[in-house]
């Protein structure tokens, strides 16, 4: 399945990309997606604890199953205002 991955701020800089499409095995979870990203970009590991994952606009935990066509957003700690 394909999911669209949006990343912001520090995470975007570490990934060198704000937007990508990732091909994952069927049944993959949010944690599997993060692991796949880490394999391609080991420095991302440092941000694992602080980054929240949103699936289609809602923050989810690692065991959340993903579906083809999902929009996943990687959200580091916020700094608005």
């Amino acid at each position, binding site marked *: 399945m394909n999911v669209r991955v*949006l990343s*912001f*701020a*520090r995470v975007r800089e570490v990934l060198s990309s704000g937007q990508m499409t990732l091909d994952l095995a069927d049944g993959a979870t949010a944690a599997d997606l993060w692991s796949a990203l880490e394999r391609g970009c080991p420095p991302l590991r440092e941000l694992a604890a602080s980054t929240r994952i*949103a699936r289609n*606009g809602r923050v989810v935990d690692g065991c959340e199953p993903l579906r083809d066509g999902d929009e996943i*957003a990687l*959200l*580091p*700690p*916020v*700094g*608005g*205002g």
Partner: protein
Amino acid sequence: MRLAIVREPIDVERLRREVERDDFGGVTVFVGVVRCRDDDGRSVTGLSYEAFEPMAIAAFEAIAGEARERWSGVALAIEHRIGDLSVGEVAVAVAAAAVHREAAFAACRYAIDQLKQRAPIWKKERYADGSGRWKENACGR
């Protein structure tokens, strides 16, 4: 009710007018401005903001809804600017209006505090030497 992420300078007076009503006697406006020094005293030349806009607007809507429930009938308007801002420019404005000042002050305070904790918006401090650093919100700042 205006809840927006904008790329152009924020017109604070226009935002205040968004919450006006003939039966409201109190209007509070909070304005967050880019300052020239960070918390460690380092000179800052500006801030670069970015947002995940759909979730940021959803967060503004949730916050405004909570405020209306807590302070019955209060009107709120929120604008946050993104992009590159210079020292002295307005990054965020919150306007709250109610029948009396207590509710207007309280709702305005609630909205900016919650926005800083919850809205998916990020800022990078830019320094004179060209370097920069992502700045996370600490509690109460």
